[in-house]
C-alpha cells in the first residue's frame, strides 16, 4: 500500500522506508522558526537544559522572526525582542530579522515563504500554531511549544506521532470571481468543526486547488489548525516551484501522495457551489453564509495577519473599496514589509493600493501580527471594549482580538471590504457583479 505525502516526508526524515499513522518517530528537523513571544522562553529552556554556553545544533537551520508585539511601548514585550537580539548575536545566527533594521520582515509565516524557508519535502517546526501555513508548499510543517523548540535547538530532532490524513478535494477549474480561499476553509471548518481534524493531516487536492495561487493555498493550510489539524498540505506543482525557485537556491524534493495511499476520509466540494462564508462569534466553526447575515451591525473592519494580510488579499479588498468610502473604522495591516512595499507599487487603474485605502478612509498599520491576537493594550487596531468587528484573520474565540466583550466575524477580504463600505455584513457578490459589468 502507498503512503500519503505527509507519511513519506516523516518516513524519510526518520530514516525509515515507511511509516503508518499512529507510529511515534523521531524526525530530523530542517528548519526551526521562533518569534518574540515564544522565542525567549524557548531560549531560557535551551540554556537551562544544555548549558549557558551551549550552541544551537545548526545555526543555518534556526530562523528567528520577531513579529507579534513590535510597535508597542510595553516594556516586557520590548525586553523580549532584546532577548532574541542578544541570543542571535551570541549564536551568530544568519537568519534573525531584527526589529528596526532593513531586514525586519513582519509576520513569520509569510516571511518564511518570502525568505525561501518553505521548501517542498522538508520538515519545519515553529513555535506558533499557524506554522502549518508552510504545508501549502508540500512541506511537513506544524506548531510546537517552547520545550519542544528548546529540544530541537539542542538536538535537531523531535518525536512526532504520524497523523492520519483527511483529504479535501475541490472540483472545478477556477475560482468564481466572488470567492477566495478563506471561503473554502471556513466552509470546511464549519462542516467538520474546530476539532474535526484533531491529530490529523488535512490534505487539500483536486483541480480547484491546482488553480489557486501560492498565497491562496497558504490561506487554506494556515487554518488547518482551526480544525485541530496537525498540518495541512497541498501537493507541489509548477506554481509551487516557480515561487520557491524565485526565493531560494536551496535544493528541495517534490513529494506526492501515492495513488493507493490510505486516507482517514475524503470529502468532495465543488467551487461553483460554495458561496462567501462567515464564522460568527466566538468560534471558527460557527458558520453562516454572508447572505444569511446580510445587514448585521458592525463598527470595525480589519484586514491583516498571516492568513488575510497578503498582497493578493489587499488587492482583492482594494478592488471593492476603490472609489468608495468606508463607513466604519477599517484597519489595514500588511503581514510583511515586502507586502507593505507592494501596497505602494501594486495598482488598480494606475492607483496604488495604499492610495485607494487612504482615500477610502482606512487606517494603515505597520507590518506585524498587530490586533489579530489582541496583544498589549496599545496594539494597532486592537478591540479594547465591545466592538463588533469583521476580520480577515483566522481565529475568533472570546478575547482573541483584545477584549472578551468584543465580537469577531471571520470572512474573506472581499467580504470584509464590502462590509466596511456598508457598515453591515454584506455579501461581496453585490459589489463584484457591479465591477464585472
Amino acid at each position, binding site marked *: 500500500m502507498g503512503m500519503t505525502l505527509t507519511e513519506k516526508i516523516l518516513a524519510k526524515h526518520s530514516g525509515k522506508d515507511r511509516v503508518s499513522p499512529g507510529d511515534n518517530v523521531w524526525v530530523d528537523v530542517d528548519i526551526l522558526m521562533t518569534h518574540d513571544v515564544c522565542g525567549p*522562553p524557548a531560549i531560557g529552556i535551551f540554556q537551562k537544559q544544555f548549558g549557558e554556553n551551549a550552541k544551537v545544533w545548526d545555526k543555518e537551520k534556526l530562523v528567528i522572526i520577531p513579529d507579534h508585539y513590535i510597535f508597542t511601548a510595553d516594556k516586557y514585550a520590548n525586553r523580549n525582542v532584546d532577548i532574541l537580539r542578544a541570543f542571535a548575536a551570541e549564536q551568530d545566527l544568519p537568519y534573525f530579522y531584527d526589529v528596526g533594521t532593513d531586514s525586519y520582515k513582519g509576520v513569520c509565516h509569510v516571511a518564511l515563504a518570502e525568505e525561501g524557508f518553505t521548501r517542498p519535502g522538508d520538515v519545519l517546526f515553529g513555535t506558533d500554531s499557524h506554522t502549518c501555513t508552510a504545508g501549502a508548499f508540500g512541506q511537513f510543517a506544524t506548531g510546537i511549544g517552547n520545550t519542544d523548540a528548546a529540544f530541537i535547538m539542542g538536538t535537531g530532532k523531535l518525536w512526532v506521532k504520524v497523523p492520519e490524513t483527511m483529504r479535501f478535494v475541490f472540483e472545478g477549474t477556477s475560482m468564481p470571481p466572488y470567492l477566495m480561499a478563506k471561503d473554502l476553509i471556513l466552509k470546511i471548518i464549519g462542516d467538520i468543526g474546530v476539532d474535526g481534524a484533531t491529530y490529523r493531516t488535512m490534505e487539500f487536492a483536486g483541480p480547484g486547488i491546482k488553480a489557486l495561487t501560492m498565497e491562496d493555498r497558504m490561506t487554506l493550510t494556515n487554518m488547518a489548525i482551526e480544525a485541530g489539524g496537525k498540518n495541512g498540505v497541498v501537493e507541489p506543482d509548477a506554481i509551487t516551484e516557480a515561487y520557491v525557485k524565485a526565493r531560494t537556491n536551496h535544493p528541495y524534493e517534490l513529494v506526492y501522495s501515492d495513488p493507493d495511499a490510505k486516507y482517514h476520509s475524503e470529502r468532495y466540494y465543488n467551487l461553483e457551489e460554495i458561496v462567501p462564508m462567515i464564522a460568527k462569534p466566538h468560534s471558527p466553526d460557527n458558520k453562516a453564509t454572508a447572505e444569511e447575515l446580510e445587514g448585521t451591525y458592525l463598527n470595525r473592519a480589519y484586514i491583516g495577519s498571516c492568513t488575510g494580510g497578503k498582497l493578493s488579499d489587499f488587492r482583492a479588498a482594494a478592488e471593492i473599496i476603490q472609489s468608495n468610502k468606508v463607513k466604519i473604522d477599517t484597519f489595514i495591516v500588511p503581514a510583511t514589509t515586502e507586502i507593505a512595499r507592494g501596497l505602494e507599487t501594486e495598482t488598480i487603474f494606475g492607483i496604488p493600493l495604499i492610495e485607494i485605502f487612504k482615500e477610502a478612509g482606512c487606517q494603515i498599520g505597520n507590518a506585524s501580527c498587530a490586533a489579530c491576537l*489582541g496583544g498589549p493594550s496599545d496594539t494597532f487596531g486592537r478591540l479594547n471594549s465591545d466592538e463588533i468587528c469583521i476580520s480577515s484573520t483566522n*481565529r475568533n474565540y472570546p*478575547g482573541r482580538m483584545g477584549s472578551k466583550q468584543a465580537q469577531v466575524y471571520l470572512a474573506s477580504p472581499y467580504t470584509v471590504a464590502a462590509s466596511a463600505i456598508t457598515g453591515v455584513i454584506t455579501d461581496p457578490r453585490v459589489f463584484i457583479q457591479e465591477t464585472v459589468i
Partner: protein
Amino acid sequence: MSTTLKPIKGKAFVLGKNIDTDQIIPAAHLVYSLDDPEERKFYGKYALSGVPSAESGLPQGNIPLTKEGKTESEFRIIVASDNFGCGSSREHAPACLEIAGVEAIITPTYARIFYRNCVDGGFLIPFESYEDLSKEVHTGDELEIDQENFVLKNHTQGKEYKIKPLGSVADIVRAGGIFEYARQNGMVAKI
C-alpha cells in the same frame, strides 16, 4: 522506574468545551518572563482570565480560577468538556495553569499542541475521560485521581469514574517531561 504514583487530590474547577489558549492566558499577558521567579507569578494571577465570567467555574459560573489579588489558586484539578486547549501553540497555557497550582486536567479530548506541551514540558498531567464529566462534577467538589488504577473519585458526591490510561506518552509523563525522558534514554547528555 516502578515507583508508585501518588494520588492527585484537590478541589475541582469546571469549564465547558473549546477552551482555547487565548481564554487560558490572554495574549496581552504573554510578555512576562517564565524564568524570573517573581515575574512568572503573573501567569498564576491571569490563568483562565480570558474565560467569559458566566462560564468560569461551572455550573454556577462567575468564579475565577485565581482569586483577586492572588497568584495561586485553591483549585487543583480542571474538569472540562471537549477540545481543551485549542488555538495557539503557546506553552504559556499549560505553564500558567501549573503556576496557579493546577496539577491535572480531565477532559474527553484535547487539542494536540496543548496536550503535547503538557506532556513534553512536564507541567501537569492531561488525563482523558471516557465521558464528558463537566456536567457531573461541580466546581469546588473534592476530587482524587488514582494514577495507578486510572480512577477519578468525587468525594463530595460519592461517585467514581474510570479514566483512560496515558498510553504512548506515559513514559514521558512519568519521567517528568521530554528532557528527563531523553536523558533517561541516553538521547541528551546529562548536565
